[in-house]
């Protein structure tokens, strides 16, 4: 049974429709890649899922609960974490430890458990000992990992990542994909980088004109087909 499901979703900005009768679902533990041209609505979709913007019609169903009002989404956000495109948007606390503790504190995790949780999260990211570093002065790659950590600390069941490879160099991309592969949460990863998505996702979808089409499926992998697709996006 789907963990998170979107049914008949309709959404548009004033004078500009983005989704019409859009359907989507994700199962526990599954990783889905999402590609598509600029302005296709990938970021919009992730923001709709966590209820930062509300659909004009249609349903977002998490664990069989239809989410409509802000209070439904508050429940959903405890278990569905969104990592923003720009880590600077996500990291607003002075130190790494405070930033990672922010989510768990909001969830009501007791204060004495926080330092352990922060340490555990940093260990997963390979950033042990970063607790007291000033977030703002971290390097681009470190910021991205910490941004992921702020969400991981909330132990999400579903992780939504918006272009996590941004300005990362190949080494940092590989590091990120290793971390992501270790996580058991279901994931939706938006990226323009096909080779990165292939290292983490079981299925990659293409979003365009408000429609989703399967672009690559690890279970029915057919290299000749993939190469032709690879090319086609450069024409």
């Amino acid at each position, binding site marked *: 049974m789907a963990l998170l499901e979107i049914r008949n979703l309709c959404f548009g900005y004033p004078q500009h429709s983005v989704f019409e009768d859009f359907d989507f679902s994700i199962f526990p533990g599954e990783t889905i890649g999402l590609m598509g041209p600029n302005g296709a609505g990938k970021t919009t979709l992730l923001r709709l899922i966590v209820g930062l913007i509300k659909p004009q019609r249609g349903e977002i169903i998490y664990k069989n609960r239809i989410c409509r009002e802000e209070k439904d989404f508050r429940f959903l956000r405890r278990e569905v974490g969104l990592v923003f495109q720009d880590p600077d948007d996500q990291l607003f606390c*002075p*130190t790494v430890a405070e930033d990672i503790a922010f989510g768990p504190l909001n969830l009501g995790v007791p204060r004495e458990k926080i330092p352990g949780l922060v340490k555990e999260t940093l260990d997963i990211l390979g950033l042990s000992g970063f607790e007291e570093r*000033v*977030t*703002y*002065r971290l390097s681009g790659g470190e910021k991205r990992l910490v941004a992921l950590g702020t969400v991981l600390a909330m132990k999400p069941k579903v992780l939504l990542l918006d272009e996590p490879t941004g300005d990362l160099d190949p080494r940092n991309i590989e590091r990120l994909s290793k971390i992501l592969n270790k996580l058991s949460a279901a994931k939706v990863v938006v990226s323009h980088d096909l080779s990165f998505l292939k290292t983490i996702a079981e299925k990659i979808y293409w979003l365009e004109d408000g429609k989703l089409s399967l672009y690559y499926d690890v279970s029915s992998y057919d290299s000749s087909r993939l190469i032709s697709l690879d090319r086609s996006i450069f024409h």
Partner: protein
Amino acid sequence: MHISEGVLSAPVLIAGALGTGIGTFIGLKKISVEKVPQIALLSAAFFVASLVHVPLGPSSVHLVLNGLVGILLGLATFPALLVGLFLQALIFQFGGLTTLGVNTFNMAFPGVVVYYLFGPLVRSSRSLIAGVGAFLAGALAILLSGILVAFELTFTGESFKAAAKLILAAHLPVMIIEGIVTVLLVSFLKKVRPEIFGQEV
């Protein structure tokens, strides 16, 4: 709090415009060409921050932060706030053209006062002293603004006295919150980007 159009008497409006004019003139002299983007961006940031609603019991107040603007910008506070308030008047109809002088003065003058009184304290490397300085700067700037508004109303006419008292009273809780938020903000900025305080404008 922005004074609306059509309330104050002509002498008060003229005095406010004069005060702001002089402050802006001096402030602009202090801004070199390469500082213009910096003052403008900070002014925009404070504009956005002033739209932030902070919960206070069942209601909410919005941040003013003229104390912190004063601490950071010194005399450049006048032109920075003048521009911000002019935009607020055009975009939201808060305040207006005739009250622009008075409203700017009410916010910028306390900022400058606070800059001279507490600037050195806030810039101190000891966090306790900086904290106390920041609280006083944030709170006093609001108090002074409130007193200026009340004074201007009373000067306009005796019958505005009650409104003046009410408005002054409304400033008191804001004062406490501004003090607290200014302390937290100063400690954040000092940790993250201490260079911001290094600059003398």
